[in-house]
C-alpha cells in the first residue's frame, strides 16, 4: 500500500509520554493525510500540546513510532520571534537561495509587506503572530503544526486570524494539525476533529459542513453540542454555551 503511506504526512502509533508518574499520553494513534485540516480538541491538561510537540519531533522523550513525510513547520501559541532580528530576518531564518524574494512574498500574504524592517518589539500581538505564520509559510510546508496559535490573541484578532488561515489554506493546500480548546474554532476550520481524552484519541469526527462555514449554519449546532458534551460541558438544545 505504497500509495497510502505516501498520502500520510504524519503517522504516529502508540505515542506515549509520561512526566514522572503522570502519564499524559498512553498510546496515541494518529494519522494526518495530505491536504486535510485536523483539529485536536481536549480539556486543559489533556496533553494536546504534548502530542503536538511529540509529532513535531521536539520531544526526545516521547515513546512510540512516528513516521513523517514531506516538510512540516510549526506555529506556537506565542510568536517566538527572535527579538534581535528584524521581521524579514526572522521570516527568512535558516533559508537559503532567493531568501529576500520569498520572505517578501510570505509577508505580503499575511498583509505585512511594509513591516519588513520592523523589530518584533514594535509589532502588536496579532501582527507578531502573522509574522510567525509567514515564517512557517515561507518554508512551503506540506504540514503545518499549530499549537493554540490564536490562544494569546483578543477575540476580534482571533476571528481575523481564522479568516487568514482559511484563505492561506485554500491557496496553498497544506495539511494542518491545530491544537485548540475552542470548539467553534475547530468546527469552523477543520475537516476532522479529534478529541484527546485520558491519554488516547477518544473521538475522531468528520466535519461535513460546506465552506465557508459560520456558527449559524445548519448542522453546526448539532456537532457543537455533541463535541461539548464529549468534553464534559453538556448544553441543552437552543442554549448557547461559552467555553
Amino acid at each position, binding site marked *: 500500500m505504497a500509495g497510502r503511506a505516501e498520502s500520510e504526512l504524519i503517522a504516529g502509533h502508540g505515542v506515549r509520554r509520561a512526566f514522572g508518574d503522570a502519564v499524559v499520553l498512553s498510546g496515541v494513534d494518529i494519522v494526518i493525510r495530505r491536504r486535510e485540516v485536523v483539529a485536536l480538541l481536549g480539556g486543559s491538561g489533556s496533553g494536546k500540546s504534548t502530542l503536538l510537540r511529540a509529532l513535531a519531533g521536539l520531544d526526545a522523550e516521547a515513546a512510540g513510532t512516528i513516521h513523517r513525510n514531506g516538510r512540516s513547520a*510549526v506555529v*506556537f501559541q*506565542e510568536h517566538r520571534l527572535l527579538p534581535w532580528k528584524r521581521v524579514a530576518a526572522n521570516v527568512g531564518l535558516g533559508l537559503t537561495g532567493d531568501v529576500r524574494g520569498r520572505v517578501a512574498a510570505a509577508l505580503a500574504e499575511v498583509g505585512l509587506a511594509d513591516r519588513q524592517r*520592523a523589530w518584533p518589539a*514594535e509589532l502588536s500581538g496579532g501582527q507578531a503572530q502573522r509574522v510567525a505564520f509567514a515564517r512557517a509559510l515561507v*518554508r512551503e510546508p506540506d504540514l503545518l503544526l499549530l499549537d493554540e496559535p490564536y490562544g494569546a490573541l483578543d477575540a476580534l484578532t482571533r476571528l481575523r486570524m481564522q479568516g487568514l488561515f482559511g484563505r492561506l489554506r485554500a491557496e496553498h493546500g497544506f495539511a494542518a494539525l491545530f491544537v485548540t480548546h475552542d470548539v467553534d474554532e475547530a468546527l469552523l476550520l477543520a475537516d476532522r476533529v479529534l478529541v484527546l481524552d485520558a491519554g488516547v484519541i477518544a473521538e475522531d469526527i468528520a466535519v461535513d459542513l460546506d465552506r465557508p462555514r459560520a456558527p449559524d449554519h445548519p448542522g453546526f449546532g448539532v456537532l457543537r453540542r455533541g463535541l461539548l458534551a464529549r468534553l464534559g460541558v453538556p448544553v441543552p438544545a437552543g442554549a448557547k454555551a461559552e467555553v
Partner: protein
Amino acid sequence: MTARRWRRAVTPVAVLLAWEAASRGGVIPPAKLPAPSTVLETGWRLARDGDLGTHLGDSLTRAALGLAIGGALGVVLGTVAGLVRLGDDLVDPPVQMARMLPHLALVPLVIVWVGIDESLKVTLVALGAFFPLYLNTYAGIRDVDERLVEAARTCGLSTLSRVRHVVLPGSLPSLLLGLRLAIAAAWLSLVVGEQVAAQSGIGFMMMEAREFSQIDVVVLGLFVYGLLGLASDLILRAVERRALAWRVGLKAS
C-alpha cells in the same frame, strides 16, 4: 526634559563653586585641598609638558592589555561553561571558588609570582576583568529563552547556527553588562597596581606627588580617574545603543 537636565546640573556646579570660594577665602588650607582652578591649572601645565600624556598613555596601555587578556579568557570560559555541560562541570566550580576572593587581596601573591614590573599591573587588571565577564557571559547564555531555541530548531537551524543566531545575540545584553563591570574593575586594579613600585602611570604620578606634597597633582590624578570612568561609560552606552537597538524598538514606534 532639557529643563530637568539643567536642574540636575545645579548642585554639582554649586559644590564646585563653594569649594573654589572656600579655598580662595582661606577656609580650606591649600596644603590639604587646593582649589579646583589650581588643579585645572596644574593639569594644563602637566599636559603641556607632556608628563600627563605619558602617564595617561601608560595607564591606558596597562588597562587595555589587562582587559584584553582577562576579558577574552572570561568570555571564552564563560561561553564554554554556558554552552557545554561538560564545560560547566569542569570550569564553573573552580571559578566560583576563586571569585569569592577579592582579587586585590592577591597582590602579595601576584608580586611573588610575576614580580613588580608591568606584568603585575596587567595581571591585576586581567584578574579584575575576568570575573565579571565570565559570570555575566555564563548567566547570559543560561538565561536565553529555551522556547526561542526550540523555534529556531523548527526552522531547521543546526546546533551551530542556533548558537550563532539565538544564543549569542540573546546573551549580548548580559555580556555588555559584564564588560561595564569589568572596566570598572580594571580602573580599580590600576589604582592599586600603580601604587606598587611603578615608574609611570596616573597612580605613580599621584604617589610621587604625595612624596613632594604636591596635593594639586594628587587631586588632578583623582580627576583623571573620574574622567576615565566617565569616558568609558559613554563609549559603552554608545555601543549598547547600536548593538541593542532591538530593545528600544518599543520607543521608536
